[in-house]
C-alpha cells in the first residue's frame, strides 16, 4: 500500500493505539523555553516527577531574554528575571541540556533545534510553543503543545495524540523574482483561510517547494499553524540531508550512513492517498502584505485595502470591519501609500541567514526613512556570528537598523519591548491585535518587503524602494 509521509512518521512512533484515532506516540525530542518551559518543569517538580530521558530534552532562552546589546538576566519583561532564573534552576536540576543566555548555541528554540541537528528527519519533536511545526521542514513530525502536555512528554517520553488527517499542498510553477517563501505561505493561508488546516498534518510539496533552500522551507512550515494545522512537513531530500549532516548532534560516522538511508525513504509514495489536496500556482503570487489582524487578511503590495462587503462570508465581512477599525485603514487605500513607523526583521518565521542576506542585499547603499525605527534580530547566536562574519551587520547598521542579540524579541514584545500604538511592517507570523504591543498595528511581509518598506517609509516592494 502506498503510504503518505504522515503515515510513515506515525507508524515510526506509535507505541500503542488507544482506541479510535488516539495513539500513544513516542516523543524523540522535547524542547523548552523560559516562558512556558519553566512552568512545565516546575509542575513536574511539584508533582515529584522526574524527566524520564533528560538527555533527549533541551531548553533555551528566547521568549523573555533581552535582545539589546550587552544583555544579562535582566529583561524589561515584568519579573522576567524570575522566569530566567527558575528555568535555569529547573533545567539544571532535571539534567536536561540548557542553552543559557551566554551559550554560543542560544537562540529561538525552533531555530537552534534545527541548526544543531537536535531534531533530525523522521524524529518526533514537541515544544510548548505553537511554531514547533517549523521543524517539519526537516521531515520531522513536530508540533506545538501546552505546558501540561510538556510535563507529560517530559515524564513519560510519549504523548496521547489524536491522529491528524493528511493534506498535501502542491506548490506548482515558479515564483517570480522578489517573491519569497513568506509570500508563498501567506498566499496559501489567504486563499484557503486560517482554518483550512484544522485537524490536518499538511505536507508541502511540488516543484516550488523543492526549489526552496532550507531557510525558505522553515518559513513555509513555520506558518502551518497559522492555517490552523496540527503541523506542516516537507519530505527530506538531499538538500535537507546535507543541511543536517555534520551538525553538532547529527549521528556520527557509520550511524550517519544508516540514518541517511532511513531518511531517504521518508516521502509520500506515488499513489498515496490524502484526505485533502490543494494546489497553489506560484506564478500568480506577488510580494504580499497583510492589511488586517489575521494572516488570511492579505493583499498584494501593489493592491488596495479591500472592502469588507466584498467578502462572501458574513463572518469575514464582520472580521474585516473590525480589523480595518483596529488597523486605522480605509477601504480603497493603496497599500503603497500606507506610512509605517517601524520595521522588524526577526522571529522564528524569518530570521535565518538567507532572510538576513535577502534583506541586506536590498539595504546595501540605502538608508531607512528618518521616521522609521528599524530592528534586525537574528534567530540564533550562531546566525548572528555568521552574519557578522559576512559583514551583514555592517550593512544593517549603515542603513539605520539596530542589530540585536538573538531571541524572539518584538514578535510579541518578548524582552519586554513594545511597538505599542505604532504601525509596523514585520517579518513575523502574527498580526493579531496587540501582539506587538497595545494598539500596535502589524503588517506581515517577507524580510525583503520589510527592508524595502523601511527605506521608503511606506509599504513597498523591493522594486520601487
Amino acid at each position, binding site marked *: 500500500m502506498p503510504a503518505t509521509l504522515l503515515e510513515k512518521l506515525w507508524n515510526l512512533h506509535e507505541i500503542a493505539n488507544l482506541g479510535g484515532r488516539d495513539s*500513544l506516540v513516542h516523543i524523540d525530542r522535547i524542547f523548552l523555553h523560559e*516562558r512556558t518551559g519553566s*512552568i512545565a518543569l516546575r509542575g513536574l517538580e511539584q508533582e515529584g516527577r522526574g524527566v524520564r530521558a533528560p538527555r533527549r530534552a533541551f531548553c533555551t532562552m528566547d521568549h523573555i531574554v533581552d535582545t539589546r546589546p550587552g544583555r544579562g538576566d535582566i529583561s524589561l519583561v*515584568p519579573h522576567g528575571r524570575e522566569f530566567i532564573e527558575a528555568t535555569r534552576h529547573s533545567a539544571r536540576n532535571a539534567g536536561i541540556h540548557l542553552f543559557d543566555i551566554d551559550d554560543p548555541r542560544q537562540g529561538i528554540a525552533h531555530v537552534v533545534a534545527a541548526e544543531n541537528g537536535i531534531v533530525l528527519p523522521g524524529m518526533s519533536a514537541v515544544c510548548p510553543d*505553537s511554531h514547533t511545526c517549523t521543524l517539519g521542514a526537516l521531515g520531522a513530525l513536530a508540533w506545538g503543545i501546552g505546558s501540561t502536555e510538556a510535563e507529560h512528554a517530559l*515524564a*513519560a517520553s*510519549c504523548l496521547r495524540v489524536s491522529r491528524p488527517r493528511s493534506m498535501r499542498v502542491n506548490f506548482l510553477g515558479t515564483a517570480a523574482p522578489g517573491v519569497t517563501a513568506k509570500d508563498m505561505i501567506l498566499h496559501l493561508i489567504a486563499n484557503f483561510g486560517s482554518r483550512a488546516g484544522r485537524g490536518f498534518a499538511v505536507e508541502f510539496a511540488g516543484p516550488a517547494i523543492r526549489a526552496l533552500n532550507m531557510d525558505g522551507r522553515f518559513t513555509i512550515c513555520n506558518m502551518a499553524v497559522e492555517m490552523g494545522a496540527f503541523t506542516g512537513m516537507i519530505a527530506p531530500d538531499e538538500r535537507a540531508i546535507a543541511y543536517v549532516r555534520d551538525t553538532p548532534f547529527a549521528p556520527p560516522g557509520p550511524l550517519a550512513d544508516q540514518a541517511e538511508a*532511513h531518511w531517504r525513504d521518508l516521502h509520500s509514495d506515488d499513489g498515496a492517498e490524502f484526505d485533502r489536496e490543494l494546489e497553489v500556482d506560484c506564478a500568480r503570487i506577488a510580494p504580499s502584505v497583510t492589511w488586517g*489582524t489575521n494572516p488570511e487578511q492579505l493583499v498584494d503590495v501593489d493592491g488596495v485595502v479591500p472592502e469588507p462587503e466584498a467578502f462572501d462570508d458574513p463572518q469575514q465581512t464582520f472580521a474585516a470591519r473590525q480589523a480595518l477599525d483596529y488597523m486605522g485603514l480605509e477601504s480603497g487605500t493603496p497599500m503603497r501609500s500606507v506610512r509605517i513607523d517601524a520595521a522588524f526583521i526577526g522571529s522564528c518565521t524569518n530570521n535565518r541567514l538567507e532572510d538576513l542576506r535577502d534583506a541586506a542585499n536590498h539595504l546595501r547603499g540605502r538608508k531607512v526613512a528618518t521616521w522609521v525605527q528599524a530592528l534586525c534580530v537574528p534567530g540564533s547566536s550562531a546566525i548572528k556570528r555568521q552574519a557578522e562574519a559576512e559583514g551583514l551587520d555592517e550593512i544593517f547598521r549603515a542603513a539605520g537598523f539596530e542589530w540585536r542579540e538573538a531571541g524572539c524579541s518584538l514578535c510579541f514584545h518578548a524582552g519586554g519591548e513594545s511597538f505599542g500604538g505604532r504601525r509596523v511592517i514585520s517579518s513575523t507570523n502574527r498580526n493579531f491585535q496587540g501582539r506587538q504591543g497595545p494598539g500596535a498595528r502589524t503588517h506581515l511581509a517577507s524580510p525583503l518587503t520589510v527592508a524595502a518598506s523601511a527605506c521608503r517609509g511606506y509599504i513597498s516592494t523591493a522594486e520601487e524602494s
Partner: protein
Amino acid sequence: MTNAREQVFHRGIAAPLLQPNIDTDAIIPSREIRRVSKEGLGDALFSGWRYRSAESREPEPGFILNQTRYREASILLAGDNFGCGSSREHAVWALKDFGVKVILAPSFGGIFFNNCALNSILAIELEEEAIARLARWVQADPGGNRLEIDLAAQRIRWREGKEMRFDIEPARRSLLLEGLDGIAATLRMEAEITAFEDADRQRRPWVYD
C-alpha cells in the same frame, strides 16, 4: 485535575463573543504573564479589551464581560477558530480562574482545544447557526436565559423543553467526566514504552545515543 465533577452538569450565564479568530494573545496578552505560575490569571483575561489601559485596570464599559448582566458568565458563545495562535496554556488558566467552565464555538485552535480538556474546561464544537440561535436567546435576558450543559447526556438545554445534542470524542469525554491524571495513566504503560524504545533503538540508534 480539579473541578472535573462540575463539568458533568453545568448551568450558567452565557456571554456571546462571536467574532471569528479570537486568538490566545487576545485571551491573555504576553505582557500579562508575570509569574511562573498557573494561578491568579483571571484578572488578566482579555485585558487588552477589558481595560482602558493595562496599567490602570479601569474597565472598558463596552466590553461584554464588564456589563453587569454578563459579569458572572461561566459559558462563552464564541466564533470560529477560538483560541487560535500561541500555545500558551495561560489562556486556559485565565479563563478557568475567571470562572469559565464551558466554551461553545464552531471550531477551536488545536492546541487550545487540548489545553481546555487538560484543565477541565469543556470546549464544544457546535455549528455556527446553532451558536447564533443560542446567542439570540441568551441576549434577550442573559440572567434568566441560562444554558444547561449536560456532558454525560451530551446535551445543551436552553429554552423550555428545547435541547441540542453535541459530539465529543470518547477519550476527551472520559477525561472530563473522570478527571483522570493523564500522566499517571501513561506512566502505568512504562513496560510498553520501554519495549517500544528497545525495538526502536535497533531501528534508529541515533535517536537514543
